[in-house]
């Protein structure tokens, strides 16, 4: 406290109690009030690292980021490794039951009893040519029938809502991609250091 302030106490200062116990209580309350005020004025943030390029694993990052943006949060997704597939202009994502034993195999059409029946696929069958395309086409039909957005739609909604999409520079070099293959809305091409510096301040950071 400087001399001027001591000589001319403000209204706030004059309300300060003089005995120690009361002073501590006063200070604690003021600290709580200030912290609550800061918390109320702060914008929460979400940082997601998307590393998978399959149709099933494309949903979590786009759903969470678009929802966060709808809540008024700052949201960003860092796409690295196979995650870069999600930023291609031409989205051609697939889903495979191979090595994916939890994936339900249900018919998207037909009578209700059939649609509710789970048909586990033997691993060997899932290796047959054309099986992956069939599984992908079935999942796309299921998604549409259940009113779930397509990945392309969700990506557009993310962009519209101001979700920041950043891509990994190293992956482009590693897999010899051409940057023209990707959507122009990518905010930046960066490396691990830059994204970690950004994610450090996020309230929620997820690795998908």
């Amino acid at each position, binding site marked *: 406290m400087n001399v001027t302030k001591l000589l001319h106490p403000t209204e706030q200062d004059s309300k300060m109690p003089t005995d120690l116990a009361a002073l501590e209580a006063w200070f604690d309350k003021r600290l709580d009030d200030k912290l609550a005020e800061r918390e109320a004025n702060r914008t929460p943030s979400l940082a997601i690292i998307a590393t998978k390029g399959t149709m099933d694993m494309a949903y979590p990052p786009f*759903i969470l980021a678009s*929802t966060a943006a*709808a*809540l008024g949060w700052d949201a960003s997704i860092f796409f690295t490794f196979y995650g870069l597939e999600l930023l291609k202009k031409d989205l051609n994502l697939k889903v495979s039951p191979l090595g994916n034993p939890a994936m339900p195999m249900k018919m998207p059409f037909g009578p209700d009893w059939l649609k509710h029946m789970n048909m586990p696929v033997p691993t060997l069958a899932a290796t047959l040519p054309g099986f992956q395309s069939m599984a992908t086409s079935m999942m796309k039909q299921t998604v549409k029938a259940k*009113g*779930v*957005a397509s990945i392309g739609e969700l990506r557009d909604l993310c962009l*519209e809502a101001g979700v920041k999409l950043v891509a990994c520079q190293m992956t482009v070099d590693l897999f010899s991609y051409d940057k023209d293959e990707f959507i122009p809305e990518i905010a930046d091409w960066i490396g691990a250091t830059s994204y970690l510096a950004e994610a450090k301040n996020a309230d929620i950071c997820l690795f998908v």
Partner: protein
Amino acid sequence: MEATNQTLDARGLNCPLPILRTKKTLNAMQSGETLKVVATDPGSLKDMVAFCSQTGNTLLESQQAGSDFEFLIRKA
């Protein structure tokens, strides 16, 4: 339900689309105006509560009408 300024039909849409559409519709509305949202996604019952508490908008009503869920939101 009381008179509303706008109605959003989010029937047939699933998470997170009803919330995203609600947010978009609210963006174009004035503070104090009310929006009625009709959805069929059962998840919207809890999501709409969370959405309003996070965004400061007021959830005036939340009710089920047959297979529809109806929400009345006042824009903050």
